[in-house]
């Protein structure tokens, strides 16, 4: 019996808090994790992973590129699915196959974009746009050729937060951990490559290496979030919390901490909201969708707060990007 059934928005936090306390004080032997909690765990880990990378991606003007990555992940998943079902007969639940497929598509996307941009000298927006629409179209056709099942495409796009399992949580947690380690260890080159790439090269670092590193971390984060929130909603998590935090903080080292925290807060609010709506109206709305709405509302709230502070303390300058 799910302990969160029929709770309203505020009761949700109470129940959650109670269960965490029970777990922490050792009374957790009889407790099975509720679906809401798994959902929360996965979303929180996704938020941390996205929130750590978000600042670098936005500052390096890679957001739309992350968008193209998220689209072509569908191609990778579809390709992996056909491969798996043709050769080994395993289905969609085989996570590692799908991960490999998605990684291959990520490499294809980045490779094609780079080729269009460097060899063919297309403008950056044209390179990104052309490569991902082409690859995405191929992906959709492949899916419809081999499966005739429209739901796979739709689900990959929109995500299915309500069918999450512990294995998804483990995946999301590992990605979050990888990102934490990466950002701590590689903070300086990542910061330099976003701020002043020529200076990075003048110092003797290899720009391609660090660009690939950033790209790889982005791809990993996007790929691992697809299951929970769908590939398109992860973008809101990459960009939104950073933009909100940036309204108030102008130091990157602190932003790298505040952004994931903001993301976790948003996840918490979203899961609670989703449950509350289910309890009161009986309608199971997409948690992913609620999450994007919450991200937007939090950002707008931030701008309101910022304006209020700005009027109260006119000396505080307003610089953010």
């Amino acid at each position: 019996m799910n302990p969160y059934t029929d709770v309203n928005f505020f009761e949700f936090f109470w129940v959650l808090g109670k269960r965490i306390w029970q777990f922490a004080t050792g009374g957790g032997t009889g407790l099975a994790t509720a679906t809401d909690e798994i959902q929360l765990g996965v979303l929180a880990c996704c938020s941390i992973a996205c929130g750590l990378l978000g600042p670098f991606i936005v500052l390096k003007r890679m957001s739309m590129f992350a968008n193209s990555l998220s689209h072509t992940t569908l191609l990778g998943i579809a390709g992996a699915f056909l491969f798996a079902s043709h050769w080994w007969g395993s289905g969609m639940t085989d996570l590692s196959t799908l991960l490999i497929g998605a990684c291959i598509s990520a490499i294809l996307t980045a490779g094609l974009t780079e080729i269009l941009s460097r060899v063919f000298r297309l403008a950056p927006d044209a390179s990104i746009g052309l490569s991902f629409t082409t690859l995405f179209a191929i992906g959709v056709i492949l899916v419809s050729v081999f499966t005739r099942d429209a739901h796979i495409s739709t689900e990959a796009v929109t995500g299915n937060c309500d069918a999450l399992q512990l294995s998804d949580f483990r995946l999301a947690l590992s990605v979050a951990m990888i990102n934490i380690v990466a950002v701590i260890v590689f903070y300086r080159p990542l910061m330099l490559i976003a701020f002043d790439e020529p200076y990075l090269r003048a110092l003797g670092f290899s720009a391609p290496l660090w660009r690939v590193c950033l790209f790889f971390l982005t791809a990993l984060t996007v790929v691992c979030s697809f299951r929970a929130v769908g590939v398109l909603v992860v973008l809101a998590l990459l960009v939104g919390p950073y933009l909100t935090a940036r309204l108030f903080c102008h130091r990157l080292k602190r932003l790298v901490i505040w952004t994931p925290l903001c993301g976790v807060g948003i996840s918490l609010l979203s899961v609670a909201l989703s449950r509350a709506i289910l309890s009161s109206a009986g309608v199971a709305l997409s948690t992913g969708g609620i999450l994007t709405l919450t991200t937007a509302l939090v950002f707008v709230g931030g701008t309101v707060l910022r304006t209020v502070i700005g009027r109260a303390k006119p000396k505080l300058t307003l610089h953010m990007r």
Partner: protein
Amino acid sequence: MKSALEMDQLSVGYDRHTVLWDVSFSIPAGIMCCVLGPNGAGKSTLLKTALGLIRKMSGKIDFFGEPLEISRSRIAYVPQRESVDWDFPITSLDVVLMGRYGKLRSMQKLRKADREAAQNALELVGMSAYAKHQIGELSGGQQQRLFLARALVQNPDLFLLDEPFAGIDLATEKILVDLLKKLSSQGKTIIVVHHDLPTVPEYFDWALLINRHLIACGPLSEVFHRENLLKTYGKTASLFDEAVKLSAKSKIGL
């Protein structure tokens, strides 16, 4: 004595036109040299190619007798202000500390010596008060001083500055020039892409005149005269430009 920067038949071309063609010169150590030429002459390209930021088509570049990979730690680059996004969320102190990244290994923490060097550099350029300010709050002159401070902490023997005096106030220009002259007197080599002819005799000892190709390189007394300046800034080289463009285009199949 080994020259600070020596180029031999350097050619750099990109896209449709060769930007530098067959440039050879040698700048000795310890002097303050300006790089002069009209817009599009290839002055910034010269600096960027020297640092390996732009790929050269042919030719050799040596710093203190060695190629870039070996002498990199002795060179500091001060790029143009527009090359950076000043809304980036970091403080002045963070920017100056970047100068030390080249010397540290990946996870090595910044040492006390590094932080002190950064503070000293900020003081030398008169920016100590702005150490904790976000860089977007700085004026143009302050931003330029910040870049110089970043170069100072690298403790280099050679400074390469790209249009450092563009768009800054006279007071800041004076501070920067005094600082550069002091460095020069300590034996450092300073090479500056400069755009303001009247100030050349006051600031520099040597001049490198280019307009897609080398016009002259040497002490001011020898090369900084009317005939060379006419050749650099005048329009007599249009035939040369056309021919060089044709050659570059044929090489890339256009």
